């Protein structure tokens, strides 16, 4: 309860939460509001129309309603972000736990592999992986997930090491508690909050990177109403047809902003060093 009050006092974080919830709500209701026809079937003779009462955000280069496409695009954006983060967490957290908890050569190996992945610019690695397993949103998701896990691994590793070095883990092992139990019951909860923060910010980050991948033609495939793809496809028509780029751009901006503000707010909330008010 107290935490909630403290959170509500953090204006940007609340703003972020509102944005994220709105986008999530939009993703749920979008198919009810925007018909598949409006999203996919354009009228070629009505292409690149400026915003009007009929087409609130105007039409794109194939005469499709941008408003409908931006709304439905939220589904893809959230889905991608969620899948990427889940994949990254699924790889990064166990790897980080293992490397942080044990002190074998295996843990050393895990961290070296993490270093290798961290040493490549994420985008270039993602580009290469997307090349390897074929284009499309799925491979972009896998590619981003595969490049994002080292961040979780690092975070979890550091946190696990910290928790491990505190007395109680040794004490627990001393009294014969099983490793898996210690990990599940004692280490994981400590690791959870930085992971949640990282994941929230990662959601925003992923949406942005997916947009860049879409911009480079490696993410979503046409005719998906993907925001990044829409910008990539419409940038040839700037500046005259500004709406075709601007509205998907604003959608990305708002969503990423939402996740980042929320993540920041959560960090302030859970980070014990910042918890003390001063």
């Amino acid at each position, binding site marked *: 309860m107290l935490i909630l009050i403290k959170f509500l006092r953090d204006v940007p974080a609340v703003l972020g939460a509102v944005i994220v919830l709105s986008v999530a709500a939009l993703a749920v209701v979008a198919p009810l509001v925007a018909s598949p026809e409006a999203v996919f079937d354009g009228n070629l003779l009505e292409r690149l129309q400026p915003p009007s009462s009929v087409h609130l955000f105007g039409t794109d280069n194939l005469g499709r309603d941008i408003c409908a496409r931006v709304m439905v695009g939220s589904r893809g954006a959230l889905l991608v972000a969620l899948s990427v983060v889940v994949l990254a967490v699924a790889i990064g957290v166990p790897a980080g736990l293992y490397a942080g908890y044990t002190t074998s050569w295996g843990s050393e190996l895990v961290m070296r592999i993490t270093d290798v992945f961290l040493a490549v610019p994420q985008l270039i690695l993602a580009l290469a992986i997307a090349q390897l397993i074929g284009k499309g949103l799925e491979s972009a998701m896998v590619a981003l997930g595969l490049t994002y896990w080292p961040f979780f691994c690092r975070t979890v590793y550091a946190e696990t090491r910290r928790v491990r070095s505190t007395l109680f883990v040794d004490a627990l092992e001393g009294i014969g508690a099983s490793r898996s139990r210690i990990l599940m019951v004692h280490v994981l909860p400590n690791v959870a909050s930085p992971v949640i923060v990282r994941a929230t910010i990662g959601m925003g980050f992923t949406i942005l990177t997916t947009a860049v991948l879409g911009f480079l033609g490696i993410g979503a495939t046409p005719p998906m109403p993907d925001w990044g793809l829409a910008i990539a496809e419409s940038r040839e028509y700037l500046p005259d047809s500004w709406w075709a780029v601007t509205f998907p751009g604003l959608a990305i901006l708002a969503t990423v902003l939402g996740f980042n503000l929320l993540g920041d707010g959560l960090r302030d909330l859970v980070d014990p060093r910042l918890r003390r*008010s001063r």
Partner: protein
Amino acid sequence: MTLDPPPAVLEVEELSLAIDTDEGRAGILDRASVKLAAGSIHGVVGESGCGKSTLLKAILGVLPKRSRILGGDIRLGQRSLLGLSPEAMQREVRGRAIGFIPQDPFQALNPVFRVDTQLMEPLAAHGFRPDDGLAPEDGGSMRGHLVSLLKAVQLPDAEQALRRYPHQFSGGQRQRLLIAAALACAPRIVLADEPTTALDVTTQLQILKLLHNLARQRRLSMIFVTHDFGVVAQLCDEVTVMYAGQTVESGPVRDVLDSPRHPYTRLLLACHPARQGELAGIPGSVPSALQPPSGCRFHPRCPQARLQCGAAPPSRVQVGAGREVACVLYGGAAE
């Protein structure tokens, strides 16, 4: 710039202070009073959380952002410190008129700056220039002044020490550095916030001795905050006992130790062999500052509590030469 003799006396009078927290307003100090006589070492003793440290912060004007002074006054000589602007507090009081020795020598020095930088800082902050002739006997330079200070706190190899980083010193050495820092601008008053708590027992003794000697040599007036009556007995001339934000009793150390008047002081002294100041022997627990008991804050635990104890806080009563007690037992009528 010349060094005027700073006012010799510091008085905290009936200071009430609260801090707004997320959970509500916490009454940290309730009419706390301390009178520091010129040239005396004045112990302030009480359990952790009783508001002793906040009292020092209030004197220095470095209270947390969300604290409110609800009443009372702090006077340095004739001057009320509460009315001073933050700039004036920094310029004229902190480090200048009043030196400060912190509790934890391991945390108080910035780890990434050299010792000389940090010792130089209060001097620079108070407008001393290298040629101010702080210490003519040391060649008049700031550095010379610092070296003589380090010698004064018996730090070996003072010249070398200045060029080192804090982590290269032991805890006791660091505390000496901090004492030197507190004396840098030649203040007449020094506030020490449990300066020996973080140290091991032998070091504690050395530091106490050093403080005692310095205070005598330089005719300093010192407030020494501690939870340990033993330390008070060794070091101090006078003592003020605090409980939950209230000052319950004060007077010359000998008198208070020999014949404590306030029930709390008595119990505290009775528990002393435990040394930790934990009131293991007193039933009940230290009250929360968020919802302090009304009246005398000790009354819920007081074996001699009476009906009127909870009605209003007792006033202070003179019970001997320089001795005051705030308790209805001695006629401290509820106001």
